[in-house]
């Protein structure tokens, strides 16, 4: 079966300049990401802040062109940006952003903004349709008249979700879709997304820092570190028994109401995409790193034994772990 979405070896570089006269430095925001997503399924994408999740999301939607690699949607390459087929395709894939205030136009009431994609794609955009969309995400029809700054953070995020759902998309890239919502509304939105997925077969790329939410939503989970996927598998496999040392650190830091204080904090400097460490990008902070890790970048491949996809020499049994003193 052709997957709905297939991205191969995506690379995205930005250049960053220090000062007016500084030499531009290359930032490799995404450095070889391969992923596939079937219709009606959810891939959870987690990882360190700044590791390239949002950039990956923008590339799979064709909002930003990769510098290397390619994206296929329903087995065909992305049409050129701006063309008619591209616009038609855009209606079928939508993004829900991390920062709802930035995603909304502060000069327009939200009802107008929910109607906008309907008008752009020539769909009926009357008040009834807009109100139905607002209700679907738990907003009241009267709130259509409100401006973004007149809504709470969570209400704004629901408006963004209503707008994304307007054109009946088959693919939704959700970039931190629930982080602005309280737990009870988060639960409502997650239930809603799962329900919509089951009714309409929507595929979700679910980017989140909330590992509980990722477990709840996903069929598969991919863990990113500094522009690459370092582990991928079933949610419970990855979240209960992570194989990659970064994934282990991530899982150990999940906030837990029943635990107080003393969480494991990663040592070492946060990674700098402008100066990728040699070999495995995680090795300077890795408690298990051996000399091989500094020399050679590990490939993402099935681990002998259980076939878990992991990019780590130690987890693959290619090197014996070395325990550093704590």
């Amino acid at each position, binding site marked *: 079966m052709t997957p709905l979405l297939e991205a191969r070896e995506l690379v995205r570089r930005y250049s960053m300049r220090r000062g007016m006269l*500084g030499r531009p430095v290359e930032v490799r925001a995404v450095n070889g990401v391969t992923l596939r997503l079937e219709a009606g399924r959810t891939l959870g994408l987690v990882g360190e802040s700044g590791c390239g999740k949002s950039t990956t999301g923008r590339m799979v939607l064709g909002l930003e062109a990769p510098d290397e690699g390619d994206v296929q949607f329903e087995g065909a390459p992305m049409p050129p940006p701006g063309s008619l087929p591209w616009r038609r395709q855009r209606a079928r894939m939508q993004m829900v952003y991390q*920062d709802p205030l930035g995603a909304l136009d502060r000069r327009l009431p939200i009802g107008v903004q929910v109607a906008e994609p309907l008008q752009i794609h020539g769909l009926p955009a009357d008040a009834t349709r807009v109100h139905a969309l607002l209700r679907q995400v738990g907003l009241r029809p009267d709130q259509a008249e409100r401006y973004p700054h007149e809504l709470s953070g969570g209400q704004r995020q629901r408006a963004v979700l209503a707008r994304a759902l307007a054109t009946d998309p088959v693919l939704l890239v959700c970039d931190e879709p629930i982080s602005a919502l309280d737990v009870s509304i*988060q639960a409502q939105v997650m239930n809603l997304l799962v329900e919509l997925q089951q009714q309409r077969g929507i595929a979700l790329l679910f980017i989140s820092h909330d590992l509980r939410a990722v477990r709840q939503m996903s069929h598969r989970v991919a863990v990113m570190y500094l522009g690459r996927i370092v582990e991928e598998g079933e949610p419970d496999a990855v979240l209960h028994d992570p194989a990659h040392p970064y994934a282990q650190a991530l899982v150990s830091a999940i906030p837990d109401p029943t635990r107080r204080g003393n969480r494991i904090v990663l040592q070492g400097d946060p990674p700098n995409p402008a100066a990728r460490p040699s070999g495995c990008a995680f090795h300077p902070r890795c408690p298990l790193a051996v000399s091989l890790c500094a020399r050679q970048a590990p490939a993402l491949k099935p681990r002998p034994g259980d076939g878990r996809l992991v990019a780590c020499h130690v987890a693959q049994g290619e090197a014996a772990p070395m325990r550093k003193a704590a």
Partner: protein
Amino acid sequence: MAGAALVEIRDLAVAFDRTPALRGVSLSIGKGESLGLVGESGCGKSVTWLAALGLLPGKARVTGSVRLAGQEILHAPPATLDRVRGGRVAMIFQDPASSLNPVHRIGRQVTEALQLHRGLSGAAAREEARRLLDQVGMPDARRRLDAYPHELSGGQNQRVMIAIALAGQPELLVADEPTTALDVTIQAQILTLLAEIRRDTGMALVLISHDLGVIAETCERVCVMYAGRIVEETRTERLFAAPSHPYAQGLMAALPPIHGPRRPLAAIPGSVPEPWAMPPGCAFAPRCPRHVAACDAAPPPLVAVTPGHCAACIRPGAVSARAPLSPELLPA
């Protein structure tokens, strides 16, 4: 406790276009204390602090009292408020990308705060800005001083906001969702940093967050808000062990589990009542599994259920049993 309060808020009420958003909130924070604020989206957590610091638009009608170390700051002259904000009391806002100025480099935005509140300028300010960015875990801080907000990731912008807030060495930091855009390892790093600063400087912290785990690990005391009021207040471990208000109990039940079978989440049914059509009694009554006729008589006052544990409920305590939702909503 009342005598030692750093900030004392009494009967704070806010209305927009005659529609009440905050309906009488009273709370106090002692020197060096950490207080968590949780509650339904739209219940007034942000507005409480925007009102207290004089940051709401002119059309907002604000009443009540806010005292900082005994001095009234509500409706204080702009010059007084300018000195308080970012100085004695700093606030990290929700929506980091939109609170930063998009046309200025982040280094300039941090050094401006250092100039304003600590009189630093030139190379000293720049060096201190770099140190602050390092401290909040910004990779390659020196070079990122010259970056614009759009050149940073969501979490990196959030860390810039934290650095700006810490620039004035505040006595109270009001952090509105400070770690929502951050992954759990950086979040752990920021929370550890805030704990260290609190230990070293005695800074008090108000943490507004939807993440109950973060609140549990960071705060000594919690207030749960619903529809513009505080409905429960107690020590943190007590809230998690024995929530009393049915809304607080609902929040605990809605948290997705990290172990065990995946089921549709126990979302609290319904939504917050329209602000202009508030029920005559308890605002949570229409959604409450323990609702009885007496709940509709008047809004229940916040009273002690046990010493140091208050709830605004006439039938506090009993754990609610909620029917599980239909199991077909599971991810397969």
